[in-house]
């Protein structure tokens, strides 16, 4: 009889195929739910292990979920922070009933080359590698356009509703620095017109780009800041992750289960 493929087996293959040494010091890239001994029938990658993603993964026959981000609404997935909320038990009970295992891949994904989060985001945004200044620079010099036209193009390609832009819509731009998730570059690099990324705190951080952009606009300096939202920014790279896992896991189906954009915006 064929030995069952377990979640532990798949995680071992992930570690073996990364091309970089595994760091056991990570608190992020660990099992968040379920046992490594669980037999896996299908694998779902996703940006966020939301309750909705867990349900749809289960419906699709996937019981190993590989999310990039957290499961319990805090980065450390510290359940003591959230266990007082009945929703925690609801989510965990559903995962138990459906024999779900969750293994997060975050830190090692960003250390892997290429970092699929950048590959996926650039693909979805139409930032072709021919525009990238050097491999892995994540800086793209595109034919000159306006900030307004660029943001509209991104919105259309992503089908996203809640993209937020700071800067003069008429500003002429061509040099784009791409960030992903919360890894959002500062906008005051003189070699960069526009930063595109997921999210970042507005103020009181290491560098507060929205305020800088407002002041640059006031001075007639062309700067733009396009925030796609965390989920939208990193969702696409989980498609690359699914394809990568599939290549060394031929025994079971592997698919991306999209978390989708969490936001909507008022009509008026």
């Amino acid at each position, binding site marked *: 009889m064929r030995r069952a493929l377990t979640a532990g087996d798949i995680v071992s293959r992930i570690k073996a195929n990364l091309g970089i040494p595994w760091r056991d010091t990570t608190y992020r890239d660990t099992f968040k739910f379920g046992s490594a001994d669980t037999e896996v029938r299908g694998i779902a990658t996703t940006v966020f292990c939301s*309750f909705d993603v867990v349900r749809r993964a289960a419906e699709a026959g996937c019981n190993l979920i590989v999310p990039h981000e957290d499961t319990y609404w805090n980065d450390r997935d510290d359940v003591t922070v959230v266990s007082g909320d009945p929703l925690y038990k609801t989510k965990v009970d559903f995962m138990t009933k459906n024999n779900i295992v969750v293994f997060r891949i975050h830190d090692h994904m960003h250390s892997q080359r290429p970092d699929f989060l950048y590959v996926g985001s650039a693909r979805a945004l139409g930032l072709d590698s021919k525009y990238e200044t050097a491999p892995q620079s994540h800086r793209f010099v595109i034919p000159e356009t306006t900030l307004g036209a660029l943001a509209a193009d991104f919105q259309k390609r992503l089908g996203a509703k809640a993209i937020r832009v700071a800067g003069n819509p008429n500003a002429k731009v061509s040099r784009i620095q791409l960030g992903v998730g919360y890894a959002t570059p500062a906008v005051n690099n003189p070699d960069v017109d526009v930063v595109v990324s997921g999210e970042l705190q*507005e103020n009181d951080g290491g560098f*507060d780009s929205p305020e800088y952009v407002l*002041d640059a606009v006031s001075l007639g300096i062309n700067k733009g800041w396009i925030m796609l939202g965390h*989920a939208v920014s990193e969702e696409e790279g989980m498609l690359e992750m699914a394809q990568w896992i599939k290549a060394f896991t031929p025994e079971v189906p592997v698919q991306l289960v999209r978390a989708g954009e969490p936001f*909507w915006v008022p009509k008026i």
Partner: protein
Amino acid sequence: MNPISRREFVTLTAAGVLAAPGVFHSRSAYAQASLTAQQIVDRIRQRAGVEWKTATVDAFKAGDPATAVKGIATTAMATMDVLKEAVKAGANLVITCEPTFYSRADSPSPGGARRGGPAGPDAVFTAKNEFIERNGLVVWRFSDHWRLRTPDPLSVGLADALGWARFKAADDPRLITAPVIALDSLASDIKQKLNIGGGIRIVGDPRSRIQKIGLLPGTTAIQAALSLFPKVDAIVGGEVREWESVELARDKATAGENKSLILIGRVVSENPGMNAAAQWLKTVVPELPTTWIPVTDPYWRPA
């Protein structure tokens, strides 16, 4: 000649402003009696009613604290546009809730804040410093201690700006009980009342019926949302981490809980609280005019 009143004379002498009373000319006495930025800050510290922290961002960020103040402007964020408006309004002391120089460190030169770019002067920093110097402005940050006051002035300000003054719970201005409204109508209403552009984003079923609302102005961690959600149908917040409160709200909606999250942006959420600061400062510094300058929503969305 305007003789100085006896009351003013006593006040000025007691304050140690007049070195040699009796030899002054009234006009110069008024000039000498003018308050410096430092004296105003000292008064704020005395009257704030909260213990002053040793580690705090509430400090002078630009200008000379010994500057005689002509007028005060409060704002959520001392942007170039806000500074220009302050000058137009005749204010030279700007009291800001958020940083002036684009980081918590609030250093007037880019220093370590420049990421990945070549070293050298930064045109935006340079121009802002020059504008401040040319116009004799003083900028002081008032964030940590303003928030510490009870009741929370940022929540009171936000509730008042949204027309919910009479709907606040007596013991907690963050808790609002308003007439029932659908989430999508509520969101549009908030967008219009606070003049928000592209910075408003909502999580939850648009048809949800909302009656109890919780306010989380500024920036808040997951603990704040976890403790507030059981008491309300919707949270109106400034800024959260998306992997925290946004995903919590999304999961609550999936689970069928009547819970929603309306994010309006950090600075926009702090605008009304700095209006409240202006009203309070008028009582602390009645000698000088105080103006509130709102910050325009930094964000827009593609059409």
